[in-house]
């Protein structure tokens, strides 16, 4: 039975380690690289090496950066008194895409998840409390996902932050997605939307 040469098998195995990539997709990507021009293949290899050698977590917030401070922390127009706490950098990017928030961020590095063995000491909780105290933050927005783990993390942080005087702690609203039909929403989402209802102004 014919098999791929060793170098191709190695590339397929490397692609298989990526999240959501199964054996068929890995094979397709490897064949694509084989067919690509030398310039495109080198560009891909260089991009992977560059991201591994130059990117590090921002010293202040944990966002990805190639300098000491990320572009958000280094931006003097951002309000340092308003801090949005997110689980992952991808959540920070999602909020930035919305273009509504002009404060700064703190990346926890995950959510509290006992089922996965993740407790408070595995997240940047201590650094968050230190930041809130040292940088005179006046509002913390807890922007974890509205899941069991996200809610529990938010409530855990809210309790810790409750000890900081003159600090407002808020949570992202949760409920119906924009453009959705009420009729199609599940009862948990409708219950969350009802309990989080607000006065029309």
């Amino acid at each position, binding site marked *: 039975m014919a098999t791929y040469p060793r170098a191709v098998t190695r590339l397929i195995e490397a692609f298989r380690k990526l999240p959501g990539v199964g054996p068929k997709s890995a094979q397709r990507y490897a064949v694509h690289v084989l067919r690509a021009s030398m310039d495109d293949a080198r560009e891909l290899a260089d991009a992977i090496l560059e991201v591994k050698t130059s990117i590090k977590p921002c010293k202040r917030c944990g966002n990805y950066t190639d300098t000491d401070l990320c572009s958000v922390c280094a931006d003097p127009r951002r309000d340092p008194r308003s801090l949005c706490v997110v689980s992952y950098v991808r959540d920070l990017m999602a909020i930035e895409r919305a273009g509504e928030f002009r404060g700064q961020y703190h990346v926890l590095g995950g959510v509290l998840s006992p089922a996965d*063995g993740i407790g408070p*000491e595995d997240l940047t909780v201590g650094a968050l409390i230190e930041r809130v105290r040292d940088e005179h933050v006046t509002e913390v927005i807890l922007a974890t996902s509205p899941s069991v783990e996200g*809610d529990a993390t938010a409530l855990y942080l809210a309790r810790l932050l409750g000890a900081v005087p003159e600090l407002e702690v808020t949570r992202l609203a949760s409920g119906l997605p924009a453009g959705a039909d009420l009729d199609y929403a599940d009862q948990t989402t409708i219950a969350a939307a009802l309990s989080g209802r607000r006065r029309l102004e």
Partner: protein
Amino acid sequence: MRERVLRTITLLRRDLGEADRLAVLLSREEGKVLASAKSSRKPNSRLAALIEPFVLADCRIIEGRGEIQRLAGGEVVEPFRGIRSDIERVARASLMAEIADQGTEPGSAAPRLFALLLDCLRLLAEGAAGPSIELYYLLHSSRLLGYGLSLDHCASCGGDLAGGELAMVPEVGGLACPACYTVAAGRWVDALSLERVRAYRHSRLRVALEIPLSNGQRKVWLDGLRAHVRYHMDVSLRSLDVLRSLER
């Protein structure tokens, strides 16, 4: 493809591919069920709420080719939102779900374990005493899963457990009399708390929570039962490590 509606409790869920999830469900009729929930990580998914951990739901399941079935829809029966209001409750519920997951196989009915887990989750969500609920769950689930703690006879010599400083020894299967094993002060079980935990064994959960146990004795029993469960399941229980760190 066979389709049926099962009443399920979500034990855990894992991300699968770009936007899907794999849910481990416990049902009364079919025991553990593995089901994929397509696009359930997207915000407008109707499946996402059904497979949130600890949710009780009526799930429409379509049989797949292998062990993994497909979640096609359903209704949430009880979301037990009270659990997520406290990280210790989440950790305790996760421990109970993890034990049910590790101790069951797909296709084997588990009506008593299902009923036990449901009772415990309901009371956890209501805010009842977490440590006592955990003690009750560990005591009863270990019996249902085939490695119940011996409360009447010394697990080592078989003699009656009459009293004295009784040691919890997971390696021999439960409590041992002072003649067989001795343990340090603060780690042994006294006759009064043994009587009370025996009553736990024969009581419904709400009644058991009324049985008085001092904090010190509850801790001795919980530590012993956790060690007993961990020893007999022979797996590391990740949620137990987090629960312990939260208790410190």
